[in-house]
């Protein structure tokens, strides 16, 4: 495992929906062309809500709703193009045929819901974000950065490192 990386996992406790929204907006402010966010969380954890707040942080105009059915929704008109994806319905082979790398390497920001299902297709550098319910409105946001840039973001966002773990590459 020559290419395995040691990375820290970071945590941020959102006490309310407003807290989660603020976190997503601050994350959007850090985003650059080619940013890839890999979002995971159980059904109903609030992945789409997180994506909506993130889109607002990118100043994406209009309504951002669920991409589950169409798999990819592209939004123009914000600070950067926003590519909102939900790969739940896909197998890795099918996702491979969709040419997702063109989005990942594109001029916009990609946010992938259920990203762990297509982990082998994700670019070498990305920020994994986990959303878990801790109460009706509170959420635990977990950041697993892969790459120095994303590691720096986690610290900048004030996330708390919770220890080392070997990332599976």
């Amino acid at each position, binding site marked *: 495992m020559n290419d395995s990386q040691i990375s820290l996992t970071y945590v941020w406790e959102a006490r309310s929906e407003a807290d989660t929204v603020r976190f997503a907006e601050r994350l959007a402010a850090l985003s650059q062309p080619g940013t890839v966010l890999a979002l995971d969380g*159980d*059904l*109903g954890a609030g992945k*789409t*809500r997180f994506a*909506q707040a993130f889109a607002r942080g990118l100043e994406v105009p209009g*309504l951002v*709703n*669920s991409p*589950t*059915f*169409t*798999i*990819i*929704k*592209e*939004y*123009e008109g914000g600070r950067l193009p926003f590519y909102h994806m939900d790969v739940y*319905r*896909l197998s890795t082979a*099918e996702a491979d*045929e*969709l*040419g997702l790398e063109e989005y990942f390497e594109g001029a916009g920001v990609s946010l992938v819901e259920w990203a762990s299902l297509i982990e082998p297709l994700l670019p070498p550098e990305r920020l994994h974000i986990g959303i878990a319910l801790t109460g009706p409105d509170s959420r635990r946001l977990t950041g697993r950065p892969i790459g120095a840039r994303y590691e720096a973001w986690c610290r900048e966002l004030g996330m708390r490192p919770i220890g080392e773990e070997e990332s599976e590459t």
Partner: protein
Amino acid sequence: MTDKDYLMLAIETSCDETSVAIVRGGREVLANVVSSQIETHRRFGGVVPEIASRKHVESITLILEEAFAKAGVGRGDIDAVAVTQGPGLIGALLVGVVAAKTLAMALDVPLIGTHHIAGHIYANRLIGEIVYPALALVVSGGHTELVLLEREGVFRIVGRTRDDAVGEAYDKVARALSFPYPGGPYVDKLAQASEEEVELPRAWLEPDSYDFSFSGLKSAVLAEINRAKMKGEELAQGALAKGFQASVIDVVTTKAMRAAQAFGVRQMLLCGGVAANLGLRERLTALCADAGLPLLIPPPSLCSDNAAMIAAAADLKWRRRAFTPLDMVAWPQLSLEEWSVQD
């Protein structure tokens, strides 16, 4: 050839289904072949869901052949080619668009780029006359919209989902209940069969809003599943499905009826894949009957994605000679309102 007997070939590849139809005069369906129903495909082991564009590439020529054979017409008989330009998945749309452009150019006939939702709405014209102003309740896996048609071919979206589409909410609840994808029809069946009902919340949003939201309902279903699990109770799946379906149908039909009254429409149109849901059909039929409002609902074969509906919508543009240049591009964000006819 007149507007009553011209032959339109239509192609739909916006999502899972590859479909080709041949329609006479915008109304008479001579062939409407959909990939998931085709026998040759089953022999290849079934390629559903046809998410990947490669699957559309593999299907499109077979399905074109089948449509010509079923309709009993030749290529030279075709007077126009229509295709879904958007919305949809770019790679999937592209296959249909390239096939349509190629055919239009080779046959030297006009091309008509068509809006997928206009297709769902105008599927109703394949079964009856639309009386304007009309209100369309579009419910599918990817869309939940209330569309006002003040006159023919002019679309105004008056309400839409802020999060999940109805079909998607069904599929996610089905997923939570461990049914295979797409699980919407299982939930409908469970709900129909159950006597008991778990009371679940309704998301009405602001009093004057025709928008929808189903994420709260989804969370309520998940909370109920968790509650049963924690207490070690056996989950009353049927009662939960019935409660979920009751909430969805209550909100969707109440808002549709309220909008119908507010905009003074003379007809209600139900369309989209979820229009096949029995509970929804029955409830809307009863409400419209009470209100004395005529209602059209296409048969299930014209509710799910199909190319005949694309021909029906493209007929709006054919009769106005509003053709699409060959440099047209597939457009995942195509706007329904902007696709309206210009007269």
